């Protein structure tokens, strides 16, 4: 069974880049364009890992992580933040909300795959 990844990013370009990167190596990918849409996907699927952006309209990445961590189906899914933000203050917020890894964009696709492998096993 291929591992199921949820990718949340308001940038359509990033959703395409991630889609190509992850599908190439056999991940099953669902995408959402903001936290609200992502929460609705949590109800329908059980994800092996969640990769999310931070700055998004409607519901941002930190708020989304907090809801994912309380979601019955998905509270154990490890969370990777993939964002242009790099300040220590923001990283602390991410860690407090329950993120496991913080990756600063731009990212190298091969490095992201390494991180996913490490996190998902």
């Amino acid at each position, binding site marked *: 069974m291929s591992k199921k990844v949820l990718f949340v990013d*308001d*940038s*359509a*370009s*990033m959703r*395409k*880049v991630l889609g*190509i*990167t992850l599908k190439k190596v056999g991940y099953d990918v669902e995408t959402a364009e903001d936290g609200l849409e992502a929460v609705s996907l949590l109800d329908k699927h059980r994800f092996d890992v969640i990769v999310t952006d931070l*700055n*998004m*309209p409607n519901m941002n990445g930190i708020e989304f992580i907090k809801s994912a961590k309380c979601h019955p189906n998905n509270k154990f899914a490890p969370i990777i933040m993939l964002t*242009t933000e*790099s300040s220590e203050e923001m*990283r602390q917020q*991410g*860690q407090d909300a329950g*993120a*496991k*890894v*913080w*990756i*600063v*964009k*731009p*990212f*190298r*696709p*091969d*490095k992201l795959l390494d*991180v996913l492998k490490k996190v998902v096993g």
Partner: protein
Amino acid sequence: MAPSSSHVPEVYYDSRFKRTVHKLLPGQYTVVSGRDMIMTLLGSCVSVCIRDKNLGIGGMNHFMLAEDNRENNSNWIEMYDMSSTRYGSNAMELLINGLIKKGGNKNHFEAKIFGGASLISNISLIGSKNIALAKEYLKCENISLANSDVGGKFPRKIFFIPETGDVYVKKITSSETGIILEQEEKYSKNIKTDNAEGDIYFFD
């Protein structure tokens, strides 16, 4: 290291426009509101101006893709493993995020593209690659392109007034052409050695 696009642009007052001007250098971006305006000098680099039509706020980036040997016939999304592509798309994302952080709504965004001239024959391709990436990115993000003044053989000096949406493209003096060539050469050397890669932090 990530691209050095976070440096704060120099700010001065322009008595002709009667506005505060933020002067962008290659690799920088900024978002302004109120009466402030943004200016930059462009050779083969590209600047994208994005404005929220409802709020009257706007921002500009200024970037160049590092030279690479691959043909430009495939979509940039499939070339994200190249540092040059990552660099350009990140410049676009930083600008869009900057606008959203100031309350901008993507549905009200309007873009204009400037620059990408072929100043020197041996880097003539760079200008057109820069323009192509900016256009494809905007298309993918569904942001309408209101206007553009790109390509050609001559450098440009542009003034963007987000309050009104106006962009003035001025002719360049010969001393400014020298400055542009010097700035862009220095910048292109920097991005050649920059792997366009952010840091990774593990929290446990």
